[in-house]
């Protein structure tokens, strides 16, 4: 089988002053007709740069210095901008990660898809309209006629991504580049979109270059896999080979970091409940006195859960399921409308603002986004010391304690003098943890603490969390949308859907014998659920719940 698109010894230079001289170094890849090649790697591995280099859409100051990109016998790198414009869209289609922002918010879906025909073909208006409708039908959008007239904000994330796919495939390009097309989607939507891409690819014989960081997705969809690390392709081969018998140490490490979907043997948690959530409800009301479209959203409806002492309660669900609202109610960032939250004999829901501030000693929260949740203008040590200082501790003592906490979460104690932007994502999440632990809480509420992190960093932070729980006797409420992560860290799991807890039980039970249809659907949607990451010899040497890895070099 000959390659439709071949990348030969491609090197892309970064502007001087970047962290490395080359974004891509000597990358050689061949993409055959009628196959899906997954390019997988962590952030900064150069996988998106590869897509940019093929289409000539590299950022300012970044350009290819060597190599060739051959499509139908012609080198794309030597083409002029005008020639490339005829290739883009018509011969190579592209799908992006964020369906929310990848479409122009001010123009209708039909208009934006139709633009493909207007710029590349001489078709008339009526004919274009027909084609657009046909495309929207092909991607199984409900009510294609309405979707054509809709603006992007009027569609759901999954529908937007379908429209995006319809647009990319409008002119039946031989090559489709999909850059993390399902990363921003919920797991059930992701499963549908992956199925759609597979279906269309097989029907039209398209060659797909699929960029992702998620090995689950790779296991789901790839025919062949190329693993990238720091701008180089370190391993390439058939999906089955790479996933189950990885050869390169980096691939092995990455795959070892993927949490298996099967939960580990259950830990016996016998403690009394430390936190009891009883009949908690929270409703959002939109629109005031004069507003015409009042809307009432039942974010959390009558949730009752309990967290045993020393245990971890996972709350899983898709976006909009109310899991974050519930987490915020527990720490009283939001006031629940009704119900009680019992922590150590006190009902947090009944406390006044001032009483709650005193009670924050016992319950703390870790947030999802390590970039946005730290004040960029304050030093990391101050951010950690702030909590104890608010609760009356002296500044010098609190700062000294911050240094100890830095060591505890595996950071260099001397790094307290730095600002948040000087740390990597994983390190920032450690700062967030240190900040939450500074008050020595009994209960930690972690809202998607590892969702923004690369898989290897995610594994480190998860190990750290498990270790801290053990050493400090913490109890934890762990919010996540990732069932693999939940399987590994939680003792009990609660599944939420549209504000309601639909199922709750020990992790192993929920995963092996889900009772509620929604739980079953969720589990069936996990990408690569049939694939169990192989335990590599070097990973097996580690204990199942290892202590925190040595302090990171600053």
């Amino acid at each position: 089988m000959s390659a439709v698109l071949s990348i030969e010894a491609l090197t892309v230079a970064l502007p001087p002053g970047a962290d490395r001289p080359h974004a891509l170094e000597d990358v050689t890849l061949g993409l055959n007709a009628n196959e899906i090649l997954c390019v997988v790697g962590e952030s900064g591995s150069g996988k998106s740069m590869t897509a940019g280099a093929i289409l000539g859409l590299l950022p300012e100051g970044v350009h290819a210095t060597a190599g060739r990109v051959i499509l139908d016998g012609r080198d794309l790198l030597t083409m002029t901008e005008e020639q490339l414009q005829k290739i883009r869209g018509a011969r190579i289609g592209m799908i992006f990660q964020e369906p929310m922002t990848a479409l122009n918010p001010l123009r209708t879906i039909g208009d934006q898809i139709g633009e493909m025909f207007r710029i590349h073909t001489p078709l008339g208006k009526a004919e274009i309209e027909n084609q657009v409708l046909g495309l929207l039908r092909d991607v199984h959008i409900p009510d294609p006629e309405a979707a054509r007239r809709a603006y992007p904000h009027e569609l759901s994330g999954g529908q937007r991504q379908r429209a995006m796919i319809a647009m990319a495939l409008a002119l039946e390009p031989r090559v489709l580049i999909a850059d993390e097309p399902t990363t921003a989607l919920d797991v059930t939507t992701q499963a549908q979109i992956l199925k759609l891409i597979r279906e269309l690819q097989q029907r039209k014989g398209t060659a797909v270059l699929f960029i992702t960081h998620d090995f689950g997705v790779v296991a789901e969809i790839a025919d062949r896999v190329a693993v990238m690390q720091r701008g180089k392709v370190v391993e390439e081969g058939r999906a089955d080979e790479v996933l189950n018998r990885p050869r390169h140490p980096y691939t092995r490490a990455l795959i070892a970091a993927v949490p298996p979907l099967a939960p580990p043997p259950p830990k016996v948690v016998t403690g009394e409940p430390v936190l009891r959530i009883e009949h908690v409800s929270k409703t959002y009301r939109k629109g005031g006195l004069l507003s015409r479209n009042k809307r009432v959203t039942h974010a959390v409806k009558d949730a009752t859960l309990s967290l045993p002492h020393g245990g971890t309660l996972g709350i899983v669900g898709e976006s909009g399921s109310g899991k974050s609202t519930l987490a915020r109610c527990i720490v009283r960032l939001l006031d629940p409308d009704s119900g009680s939250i019992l922590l150590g004999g006190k009902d947090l829901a009944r406390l006044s603002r001032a009483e709650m501030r005193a009670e924050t000693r016992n319950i703390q929260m870790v947030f999802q986004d390590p970039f946005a949740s730290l004040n960029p203008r304050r030093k990391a040590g101050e951010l950690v010391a702030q909590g104890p200082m608010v609760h009356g501790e002296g500044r010098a003592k609190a700062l000294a304690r911050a240094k100890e906490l830095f060591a505890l979460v595996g950071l260099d104690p001397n790094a307290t003098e730095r600002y948040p932007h000087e740390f990597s994502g994983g390190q920032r999440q450690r700062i967030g943890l240190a900040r939450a632990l500074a008050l020595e809480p009994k209960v930690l509420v972690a809202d998607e603490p590892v969702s923004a992190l690369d898989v290897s960093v995610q594994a480190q932070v998860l190990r750290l969390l498990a270790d801290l729980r053990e050493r400090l006797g913490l109890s934890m409420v762990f919010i996540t949308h990732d069932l693999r992560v939940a399987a590994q860290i939680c003792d009990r799991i609660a599944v939420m859907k549209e504000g309601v807890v639909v199922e709750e039980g020990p992790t192993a039970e929920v995963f092996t014998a889900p009772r509620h249809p929604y739980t079953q659907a969720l589990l069936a949607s996990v990408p690569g659920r049939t694939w169990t990451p192989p335990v590599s010899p070097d990973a097996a040497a580690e204990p199942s719940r290892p202590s925190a890895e040595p302090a990171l070099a600053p």
Partner: protein
Amino acid sequence: MRILLLALRRAASSLPTLLILLIGLFLLLQLAPGDTVDALVAQIGGGDPKMIEELRRFYGLDVSVAVQLGRYVWRLLQLDLGFSAIYGKPVSAVILERLPATLLLMGSSLSFAFAAGMALGVFSARRVNKWPDTIISTLGLVFYATPSFWFGLMGIVIFAVHLGWLPAGGLEEIGAGYTGLRRILDIAWHLVLPTLTLALIFLATYLRIMRASMLEVLTLDFVRTARAKGLSPGRVVSRHVLRNALLPMVTLIGLQAGTMLGGSVVVESVFALPGLGRLAYEAVVQRDLNTLLGIVFVSALLVIAVNFIVDILYARLDPRIVT
């Protein structure tokens, strides 16, 4: 339907604004020493107390402030702006005489500032950090930092006095008796300098906002999508970037309408234009409360109208706005 609802809501919510403004100004002017009759009497060279009292009763100034305010608001509801003692005719007539000049000046300045600011901003953003951008940005800063009366005076000195290309002031050639098209051209010719003077500062603001807004929109994901679709750079800008970048500009028009009305006082004085700005100044000096309140009323209506149009325009431009 969406836009009609929005229009109704906005119209309803601007009424309290208008009322608060008028009451506030009425009370403020009560605090200033002297009233219309004092000014009138001073103008005619004094008079006996009986006549002054008679005048006060005639103009309704002998009752308490609350009653005066009540009467005023009641008359306003009937669209009656009152009678100007100084000009000797209804306030509405006085204002209507002066309104066209101000409207012309504002309209032309706003259009010019918006169009030129937008064009220069787009041009600048597409050559960001290259020399055309640097020149335009520097020029913008110069316009912004220089007071408009200075521009006006220098314009008069250079173009009217030295070169003799443009008239130094006035709205039209008085006594020339032009009619029809000839008159329109004459007025346009007279308005060139005032328009430029008033517009330059606003042009600088629009230019900077447009440039920043273009640069921001150019980094958004859908621009990358557009390029990946195979659109030419020009088409990416015209079909995808421009409309998105215009949104903050449109907001700015509404915010600046009031500022521009204030700026026109200076420009009208410099160029001796018979507009609302100068009328307001004269009304303050002469304690002509009725006229002044009338001007405030009309100006507020103007600003509210501009903002109303801007809101509707914004809703037209951005489908995400819901009532």
